[in-house]
C-alpha cells in the first residue's frame, strides 16, 4: 500500500494491521510525517510538528508490539492534539502570540492517557486563538485549510484538528468544545466529532476558555475511531474534580450494537429555524435514513431552549474574561482583534446576569432531561449553514443577516450549557461540495447510544467512503 493511502486508513483498520504486524508503527508514522511535510506549509494545520519524537515513539511501539506487549487499538496510531492541551517539554501556544514560547512541565491528563494507550504524538494543532471563536481563522499561525473548499472556513475553534483529520495529516485528534468547537469543525470538514458529557473526560492540564462549559473530545474519520479514542480518554481523574466516578462502558462494542427499536426526537425550536435549504434537506434525509434502519423518529418540543443562547453568552464571556484579565491588562495588543473584543465584552456582563444564566442552565438541563425520558436521543443539524468563505463576516438565510459566528454556534452551544453528550457525523454534501453535519444528542453519560446510532447511520450516509480531493 502506498504511503499516502496509509494516511487515509481508519484508526481501526490501521490498528488491526499493527496488531497483526502487517504494518509497522514506524512505517505508518513516516507516512504521516511525509504527508505533513508535503502539505502542511499550505494547509496550516500544525503549529508544532514533532518529527524526531514521533519517530522515536513509533520505534518504541514497534519494539513493544514485536515483543508481545501490545497495549490495545491505539498502540502505534499517529494522532495530534489541539495546541491548548499541555504537553511536557513541548510548546503549547493556544494559537496565540501571548503563549508562543510557553513550554509546560507536565502533560495534561488526556495527553498522558493517549500516550499510555500507545498513541504516537505527531504534533500540536492550530486553532482559533485561545479557543474563542467558531471560524478557525487565526491571525498568528494562518488559517487551516478546509479540504472540501480551500477558500472556506474549517470551523473552530478546533480548526487544525478538523482540517488535519479530514486531510489525512493525522489519524485522529483531540479538540475542545465550549460552544461547539469540536462539532463545528467536524461538520464543516466532513468528519466525526464528539463532545462527551460534562464530567466524562478530564480537563486537567488543558487551558480553559470557560470552566463550566469546556469539554474535550475526539475528532476522527469514522464513528468507530471516535469510540476507540473515547475509550482511552474517559473516566475519573483526581486532578479534575468535575469528572464523574461512573464506570466507563465498552464504547466500541456499544457502537456495533443493533440500533433497531431506539427512538429519536427531532427538535424544531431554534435548531430548525432559518436553516440553509441544503442543510435542511440533508438533515431531514438523514432522519428518514434512520427510520429506514428501524429507528423511530418523532417530533418533540423544547419550548424554552431559546434561552440557551443568552445564558451561554453570559457564562462564556464572564468566565473567559476572568481567566484572561491579567493578560488583557498588560498585553492586550498581542491578542487578535476579534478575540480581544470578545474577551473584553465579559467585563460588561453583570454578576447577576451570570448567576441567572447559571440558574437558567438548571432549567434548560431539566427540560432536555425530560424529553430524553421519552426518546433515546435528539436529532439536530450541527450547523445551520455549510462552511462560509474565510473572508465572510455575515451570512443571510431566509432574509435574516447575522454574524457568521452566531450562525455557526446556534445549534451547538445549548448543549454545552446542558452538558449532554453530542456527536456530529457527516450526512451530506451541498451542491458546492461542502459537508453537512448531523448532530445527535444523548442522555448524560450515554455516549454509547450516540455511537450506536451514528455507527448505524454511517453505513447508509451519502458521505460514506467520500473524501475530499486531496493534493497528490
Amino acid at each position, binding site marked *: 500500500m502506498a504511503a499516502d493511502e496509509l494516511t487515509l486508513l481508519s484508526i481501526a483498520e490501521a490498528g488491526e494491521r499493527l496488531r497483526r504486524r502487517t504494518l509497522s508503527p514506524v512505517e505508518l508514522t513516516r507516512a504521516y510525517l511525509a504527508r505533513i511535510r508535503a502539505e502542511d506549509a499550505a494547509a496550516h494545520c500544525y503549529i508544532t510538528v514533532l518529527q524526531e519524537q514521533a519517530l522515536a515513539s513509533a520505534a518504541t511501539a514497534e519494539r513493544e508490539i514485536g515483543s508481545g506487549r501490545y497495549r490495545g487499538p491505539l498502540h502505534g496510531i499517529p494522532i495530534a492534539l489541539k495546541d491548548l492541551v499541555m504537553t511536557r517539554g513541548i510548546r*503549547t501556544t493556544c494559537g496565540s502570540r501571548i503563549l508562543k514560547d510557553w513550554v*509546560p512541565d507536565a502533560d495534561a491528563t488526556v495527553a498522558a492517557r493517549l500516550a499510555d494507550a500507545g498513541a504516537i504524538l505527531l504534533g500540536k494543532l492550530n486553532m482559533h486563538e485561545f479557543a474563542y471563536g467558531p471560524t478557525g481563522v487565526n491571525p498568528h499561525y494562518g488559517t487551516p485549510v478546509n479540504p472540501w473548499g480551500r477558500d472556506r472556513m474549517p470551523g473552530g475553534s478546533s480548526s487544525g484538528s478538523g482540517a488535519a483529520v479530514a486531510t489525512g495529516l493525522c489519524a485522529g485528534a483531540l479538540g475542545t468544545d465550549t460552544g461547539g468547537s469540536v462539532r463545528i469543525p467536524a461538520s464543516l470538514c466532513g468528519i466525526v466529532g464528539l463532545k462527551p458529557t460534562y464530567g466524562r473526560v478530564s480537563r486537567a492540564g488543558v487551558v480553559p476558555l470557560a470552566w463550566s462549559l469546556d469539554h474535550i473530545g475526539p475528532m476522527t474519520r469514522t464513528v468507530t475511531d471516535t469510540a476507540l479514542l473515547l475509550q482511552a480518554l474517559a473516566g475519573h481523574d483526581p486532578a479534575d474534580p468535575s469528572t464523574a466516578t461512573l464506570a466507563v462502558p465498552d464504547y466500541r462494542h456499544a457502537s456495533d450494537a443493533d440500533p433497531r427499536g431506539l427512538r429519536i426526537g427531532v427538535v424544531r425550536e431554534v435548531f430548525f429555524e432559518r436553516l440553509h435549504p441544503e442543510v435542511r434537506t440533508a438533515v431531514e434525509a438523514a432522519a428518514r435514513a434512520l427510520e429506514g434502519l428501524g429507528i423511530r423518529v418523532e417530533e418533540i418540543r423544547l419550548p424554552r431552549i431559546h*434561552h440557551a443562547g443568552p445564558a451561554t453568552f453570559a457564562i462564556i464571556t464572564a468566565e473567559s474574561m476572568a481567566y484572561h484579565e491579567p493578560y488583557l491588562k498588560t498585553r492586550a495588543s498581542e491578542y487578535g482583534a476579534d478575540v*480581544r473584543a470578545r474577551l473584553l465584552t465579559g467585563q460588561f456582563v453583570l454578576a447577576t446576569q451570570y448567576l441567572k444564566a447559571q440558574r437558567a442552565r438548571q*432549567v434548560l438541563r431539566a427540560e432536555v432531561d425530560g424529553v430524553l425520558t421519552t426518546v433515546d436521543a435528539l436529532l439536530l443539524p450541527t450547523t445551520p449553514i455549510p462552511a462560509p468563505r474565510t473572508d465572510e463576516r455575515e451570512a443571510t438565510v431566509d432574509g435574516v443577516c447575522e*454574524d457568521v459566528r452566531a450562525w455557526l454556534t446556534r445549534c451547538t452551544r445549548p448543549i454545552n450549557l446542558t452538558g449532554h453528550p453530542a456527536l456530529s457525523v457527516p450526512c451530506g454534501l451541498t451542491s458546492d461540495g461542502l459537508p453537512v453535519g448531523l448532530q445527535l444528542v444523548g442522555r448524560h453519560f450515554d455516549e454509547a447510544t450516540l455511537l450506536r446510532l451514528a455507527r448505524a447511520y454511517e453505513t447508509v450516509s451519502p458521505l460514506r467512503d467520500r473524501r475530499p480531493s486531496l493534493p497528490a
Partner: protein
Amino acid sequence: MASVSKELLRIIAEALARVPVDPGDLPAIEAQLGAQLDGLAGLDELDLQSVEPVTVMLPPREAPHGR
C-alpha cells in the same frame, strides 16, 4: 437589538472593571453586548427564583502557564 453607548462602556471599563479598552474595540463590544441584552433580560421568564442556586461545578486546577 438593544443599544449601549460606547461612552458608557468606556466609563465602566475605566471606573469599575479597570481593564483598559482600546476605543477601536468598542464598536465590536457594543454590537456583541447589544445583541444579547434583550435575551439576558428574558431569562426572568424562567421563574429562576424556584431554581436551586447551587451551580458550582468544580473545574480542574488552572493551567500554570507562566503567569
